[in-house]
């Protein structure tokens, strides 16, 4: 039991606990906070996997941009009473739990089949492929067309958001 194993399992436990707290909080603001904790844990796990670029992007895009958007929307919609946003976590949950347990069991069985165990340790090249340099080269040489298509997708998303959220004039 060395330091790295303890570090990984404590981060993984924190990620799972924050995810459970996220879906059990009644106040959506607290859910957002716990989801940000979860995203930071996943970014640390990316660092353990030598994926530095993805870890930084995770914090910048997910924990930064997307979650600020969520907080902003919650703040924007919080007009007057809280009852429009909070909810009673009530009935009909048993079927949902059973379905999720079956799904988890299915994934675990799929993972424990012998043909899925391909590698037992991190590849020696992992330090080189996670850097900004390697990802940038690959992105602008091999995956240039998908990169340009993503820019078109983001433009379409901007136009769509403006059309959807614009106040209608009666």
């Amino acid at each position, binding site marked *: 039991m060395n330091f790295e194993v303890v570090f990984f399992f404590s981060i993984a436990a924190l990620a799972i606990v924050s995810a459970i707290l996220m879906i059990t909080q009644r106040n959506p603001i607290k859910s957002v906070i716990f989801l940000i904790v979860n995203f930071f844990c996943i970014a640390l796990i990316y660092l*353990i996997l030598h994926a530095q670029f993805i870890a930084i992007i995770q914090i910048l895009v997910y924990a930064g941009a997307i979650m600020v958007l*969520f907080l902003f929307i919650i703040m924007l919609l919080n007009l007057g009473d809280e009852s429009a946003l909070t*909810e009673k976590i009530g009935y009909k949950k048993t079927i949902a739990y059973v379905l999720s347990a079956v*799904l988890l069991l299915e994934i675990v069985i799929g*993972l424990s089949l012998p043909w899925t165990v*391909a590698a037992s340790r991190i590849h020696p090249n992992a330090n080189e492929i996670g850097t900004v340099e390697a990802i940038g080269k690959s992105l602008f040489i091999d995956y240039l067309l998908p990169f340009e298509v993503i820019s078109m997708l983001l433009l379409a*998303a901007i136009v769509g958001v403006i059309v959807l959220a614009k106040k209608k004039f009666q």
Partner: protein
Amino acid sequence: MNFNITDIPLNSYLALSAILFSIGVIGVLTRRNAIVVFMCIELMLNSVNLTLVAFSAFHGNITGQILVFFVMAVAAAEAAVGLAIIIALFRNKMTMNIDEINIMKW
């Protein structure tokens, strides 16, 4: 500092990803607040990203991390559009409860 992590097998990362995905599924199925359901979908996207990065690191192949980059770009667009839809729904029905937003139900 050069520290190599060799003791954690790939299955640990995949198990963590599976648990996070299942928690996201539980959230989507049990919660009724549209914003929280949307956040659970983000959690599920993240657990799949974790799987991709783990496979990428263990196989020494960069393609998984490129795919995660594209997934994050699509997730950002999806979050913006989804929240705009939630705002439009809230403006029309004055509710966040997805059980009351049933105009597309037949």
